[in-house]
């Protein structure tokens, strides 16, 4: 029921929308005001447990500008039931001639997508990594190197460029078979290639402990109060002369903070969440311990609590 202007009655009358015919009809004189209305609600519902052979979707995925022709392609589908023999003999063979020029690109994109999903990365980072791979993929110098390492390095660079860096160890954990060293080398190589291509040097800032803190803390399930204190402590630690990798410093700060709170995390958990070895966390803690009073904000722990902090 809606109000619309009816030209016959020459005033606003109540109109009825007839769903079956798609007409808007004036309830007083019966004049059809609008016919052939387009229903924009969803045509069908898809459930996860239903079989995949009856998928009524008529369109493919979004067009990908990185592929030639935007990834358009036409495939000959299998006929229903019966003549599966026919298909695999002639038509099937013709279909699978392998004429797709982007075959390797598509495979690479799929690998990057798998790695990104394992890490829970958003589409922006995935797309950035795809772009980077595309720029590097047709260089001959790539062929000699480990493909997994190159893809992992593309993902690593994409994370850095989007200001959401992931440690090389985290990338290692989802890349199959690439070692930290290989990824590091591949990353240097790609950065050099990109700089040559772009004609100017790439803006990729150095990593800081603070970039990773939020994520490590949430892996460990720390309270908000503790997380804030840890972030402040890490900020202050940048001014000190501590010669350790930023990840190790982050891990040691987390250890210090959790030791001060009620919820003490064992070294093993912190080691697992950050990827830093237990021995390294202990050593970094040893370096940080003398400055504990300056690092920990007073809102989190008082002087006497700091005295309770175990000496390394």
């Amino acid at each position, binding site marked *: 029921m809606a109000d619309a202007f009816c030209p016959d009655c020459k005033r606003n009358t109540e109109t009825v929308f007839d769903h079956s015919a798609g007409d808007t009809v004036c309830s007083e004189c019966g004049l059809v005001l609008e016919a052939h209305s387009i229903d924009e609600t969803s045509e069908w519902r898809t459930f996860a447990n239903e079989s995949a052979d009856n998928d009524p979707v008529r369109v493919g995925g979004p067009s990908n500008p990185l592929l030639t022709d935007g990834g358009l392609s036409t495939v000959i589908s299998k006929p229903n039931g019966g003549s599966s023999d026919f298909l695999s003999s002639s038509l099937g063979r013709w279909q699978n001639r392998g004429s797709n020029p982007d075959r390797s690109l598509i495979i690479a994109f799929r690998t990057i997508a798998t790695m990104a999903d394992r890490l829970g990365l958003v589409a922006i980072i995935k797309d950035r990594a795809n772009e980077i791979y595309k720029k590097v993929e047709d260089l001959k110098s790539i062929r000699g190197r480990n493909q997994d390492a190159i893809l992992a390095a593309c993902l690593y660079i994409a994370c850095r460029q989007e200001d959401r860096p992931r440690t*090389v160890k985290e990338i290692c954990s989802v890349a199959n078979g690439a070692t*930290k060293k290989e990824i*590091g080398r591949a990353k240097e190589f790609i950065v050099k290639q990109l700089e040559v291509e772009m004609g100017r040097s790439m803006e990729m800032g*150095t990593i800081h402990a603070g970039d990773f*803190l939020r994520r490590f803390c949430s892996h460990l399930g720390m309270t908000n109060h503790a997380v804030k204190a840890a*972030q402040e402590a890490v900020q202050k630690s940048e001014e000190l*002369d501590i010669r350790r990798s930023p990840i190790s410093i982050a891990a040691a700060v987390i250890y210090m903070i959790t030791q001060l709170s009620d919820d003490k995390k064992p070294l093993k958990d912190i080691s697992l969440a950050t990827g830093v070895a237990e021995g390294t966390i202990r050593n970094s803690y040893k370096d940080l311990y003398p400055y504990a009073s*300056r690092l920990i904000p007073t809102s989190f722990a008082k002087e006497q609590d700091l005295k309770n902090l175990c000496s390394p």
Partner: protein
Amino acid sequence: MQIGSEQVWLHMAQYNLEGCQSVDLAEHPSGIVPTLQNIVSTVNLGCKLDLKIIALQARNAEYNPKVCTGAKSEEQSKLAARKYARVVQKVGFQAQFMDFKVQNVVASCDVKFPIRLERLALHHNAFCSFEPEIFPGLIYRMKDPKIVLLIFVSGKIVLTGAKSRDQIKRGFEQIYPVVLEYRKVPQIGNEGKDSRDPVPRQLT
């Protein structure tokens, strides 16, 4: 010493001559002299060599594709090359001594103050590569002279890729004022940040 069919590669050894002698400030305005650590040179013996025979007959020779280290300075490097040429001659080959050339000189030194690598990498982005996760030192690729410097937080610097001692000297004199600019001030009681710091820190 590595012997290929004609060319001989000599990797010369470590040595620590800590300079106790006084430094000529006209030559080294920074007051610091880099100490040479390694020199790699090649010489062309001018004849084909049979590696197996040399390995079996010559004393102190190992047929081992891995590098063996040796020398102390360019002159010693040349002397060693001549000695080996003589050894090869004694084994029976017609060895000559042609085109002796120093290929790589490695030196190290210490500026004696800690350095802020991150800021240096930020401001000299075009030349520097600093990845604390991968390697704790900053890699500075100088264009002129074309050498690579590894700069560490402690203030120790390694220079490599030079073809001569003069390149090392020039390279170091060029990097010294740069590194002075990024000296880390000892922080006891001093919480203040460098007023020139233009980069705002952001919390994630």
